């Protein structure tokens, strides 16, 4: 196994529901190559520092707390996976909140997605970083 700098999780709410896992499951059924590319990109991201990943444009940082993993699958299909790094875990974990097709993120949809990711981040931290 490659050396990973951090763990990675998919967001789940208090009831164990996860939109991002549903989205990824749907991609695995409909776009096997895209799903595989997402897997590979997540693996690459786990091996790199976030600073290096930003420099390589593997990820973007559209807000102070949310990063976005960029995945190009084939010529016309791209995915965007927002994630956050909870400070209470000392940079040892990233949590993916969504996996959206780029085509569906026109106009205000992208900023709405980032806002949703920030909301999930706050909820996750309240639930998992109580000791902080």
């Amino acid at each position, binding site marked *: *196994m*490659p*050396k990973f700098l951090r*763990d*990675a*999780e*998919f967001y*789940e709410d208090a009831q164990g529901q*996860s939109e991002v*896992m549903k989205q*990824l*499951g749907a991609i*695995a*059924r409909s776009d*096997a*190559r895209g*799903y*595989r590319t997402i*897997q*590979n*990109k*997540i*693996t*690459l991201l786990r*091996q*790199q520092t976030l600073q*290096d*990943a930003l*420099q*390589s*444009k*593997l990820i973007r940082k559209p807000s102070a707390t949310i990063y976005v993993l960029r995945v*190009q699958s084939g010529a016309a299909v791209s995915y965007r996976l927002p994630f956050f790094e909870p400070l209470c875990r000392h940079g040892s974990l990233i949590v*993916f909140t969504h996996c959206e097709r780029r085509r569906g993120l026109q106009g205000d949809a992208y900023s709405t997605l980032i806002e949703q990711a920030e909301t999930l981040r706050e909820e996750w931290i309240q639930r998992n970083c109580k000791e902080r």
Partner: protein
Amino acid sequence: MRVGDFFSRIAEEIPAPAEVAAEIDPPFILAANVYHLRTAHGLTQTQLARAVGIAQPRIAEIERGDANPTLGTLVKLAHALGVSVSVLLDPACADQDPAGDTEPPAVTANLQWSQAVEELEEISATAGAQETSSAAAEPDDLAQWAARLVERLPHGRGIRQVSKGVVFELSVFESTYAQRVR
């Protein structure tokens, strides 16, 4: 849920089509290996790009798995990182520590080369002289340029230098150009 557990579950529930499952992913193997070797040697993307003779965004593209570099670029990358091309494409490479913690000799030499070229270009610009790059220089200018360059490099012979996309063999370089003005 951890991503590894999720991916394992999906692999069981929704097996990938055979043609996808059988594919290997060279761009991602290359990306992981170049990143691993570059950081292990303490190089920035810019330093590696300069040593290879390509632009920094190209290194970034390789390290994010979006590039499909030519064989020539692969050879130069491997040389600059002190490994063979097969190591760059070895899925197990990122599991191993490269021999030694310092920059590979080729990179060290290439950085010195780059620094020497920069210095010479600065000298040239200051003096208002003509272009010093090998591609544009006349043979006589190149001979003088080469002589000054060779004097500045600690390794006179047997070091392959890669700069600006051109591969030089210093021993040849020295014998064909530098000796003409000595």
